[in-house]
């Protein structure tokens, strides 16, 4: 009967599609992260070191932050990606074994806790609240929350945001800080910074707030040359760390060692010059005295 034939074709189609979906985690940079891992490692056997020895590492990165983590076609580019490559090399793994998974601010902890990714290098600020859920290596960069405003704006400090419209991304630390400390400001939330920048360019918001290095990445884009300025007075300290599973102390310590080595052998500077350094800012010093103790 026709129905059975239709049903059979449908079943075959579904099987084919499921095969395709499950087989997707082979390529890098498609961001489906179909996570066949067994959840957060609680021993060296499933930690980052073991994964690297197995030849494949899943790294969560941002896909929409120029200079830091940007998906360009099928590949990812940016300072965070370069750090991932340095860490992979330090763990004795080929660059080609890195699988990049797109993460957004709100799902970085869940992805680590569920094992969807092994590491998160996605402009990930270290703070006490997150430390209860994940472990941090680093910091590998010290950013600060700042404001991006039009070049002719009079806003020069977060206190001046009273009654003004400021834009950020849902679930991010900068958004929370505005909600908690600067309640007089009107907070517009979107799911992506590119939308905030568009709103700023169009005048719907008066400022965009997030880490200064991310803002600089956007302001340096050729389309916005001369239109925006970063206020330049960071009002917080945002240490960027490498997120990994809470129980993986050994992996965390190893990554700290790799960072120390990168600070002295020039690979850190090279990573900076290749990406964010193009804006003209010289590479900062990686302060190895501030590295976490991986508790």
């Amino acid at each position, binding site marked *: 009967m026709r129905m059975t034939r239709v049903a059979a074709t449908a079943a075959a189609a579904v099987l084919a599609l499921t095969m395709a979906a499950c087989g997707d985690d082979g390529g890098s940079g498609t961001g489906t992260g179909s996570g066949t891992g067994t959840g957060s490692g609680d021993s060296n056997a499933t930690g980052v070191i073991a994964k690297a020895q197995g030849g494949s590492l899943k790294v969560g990165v941002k896909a929409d932050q120029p200079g830091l983590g940007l998906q360009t076609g099928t590949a990812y580019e940016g300072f965070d990606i370069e750090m991932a490559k340095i860490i992979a090399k330090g763990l004795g793994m080929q660059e080609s074994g890195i699988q990049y998974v797109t993460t957004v601010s709100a799902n970085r*902890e869940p992805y680590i806790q569920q094992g969807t990714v092994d590491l998160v290098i996605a402009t990930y600020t270290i703070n006490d609240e997150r430390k209860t859920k994940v472990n941090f290596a680093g910091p590998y960069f010290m950013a600060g929350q700042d404001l991006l405003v039009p070049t002719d704006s009079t806003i020069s400090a977060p206190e001046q945001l009273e009654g003004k419209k400021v834009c950020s991304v849902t679930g991010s630390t900068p958004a929370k800080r505005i909600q908690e400390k600067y309640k007089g400001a009107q907070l*517009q939330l*979107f799911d992506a910074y590119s939308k905030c920048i568009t709103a700023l360019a169009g005048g719907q918001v008066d400022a965009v707030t997030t880490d200064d290095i991310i803002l600089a990445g956007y302001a340096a884009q050729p389309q916005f040359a001369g239109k925006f300025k970063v206020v330049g007075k960071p009002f917080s300290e945002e240490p960027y760390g490498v997120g990994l599973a809470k129980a993986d102390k050994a992996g965390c310590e190893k990554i700290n060692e790799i960072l120390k080595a990168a600070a002295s052998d020039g690979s850190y500077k090279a990573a900076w010059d290749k990406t964010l350094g193009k804006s003209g800012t010289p590479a900062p010093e990686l302060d190895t005295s501030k590295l976490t103790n991986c508790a």
Partner: protein
Amino acid sequence: MPVFSDPANFDAYVSGFLWILKMTGASAALALVIGVLLAGMRVSPVPVLRWFGAAWVNIFRNTPLTLIIFFCYFGLYATLTISLSDDLILNNFWLGVVGLSVYTAAFVCEALRSGINTVPPGQAEAARAIGLTFSQTLRIVVLPQAGRAVIAPLGSVLIALCKNTTIVGTIGLLEASNIMKQLINDNGDQVILIFLVFAGTFAAVLIPVGYFFGWLANRLAVKR
């Protein structure tokens, strides 16, 4: 209930749902009005009106609501500079209401049109015979009967609208789904409880509404 015994969380939960209810109310009213007008346009003798109604329905029924809400902010507000309020939150609220209304109106229009098809042609013929104009025929004879015939589908549309209001969260309004996401992110260990409370609230409101519309449809059905 550890999560919700914290007054801040409970307030957030309540305010999230209040936004949902407000949006549902405002959008439902607007969508009904626009939907009736659209249905009238689609069956009218003027070709331009028919074309406009058909275009509206085809465009808005085939576009994801997420994109429509997006265009409300970046199209209506950002590019066409139509500001519906000076306060940012209220502005987003009204932009969301506009988006929801134009989307739902397309479905209301189609439901009404199928309702118009159920009205026996004799009714309209008799109306014409006694000299009623097109708009009088619609207003006095056809639409009341059509409306009574499609109460059940309109109830479905209303319930779908209530659920769709969660999508306005994509332009930053702190309605129920955004609040739920925040609470889950901050209290990961009580995910099930949080989800059941939010889902349960929706179910507790919408399931009785569904049965109410079923009862109402039976009550008001035109007995032929």
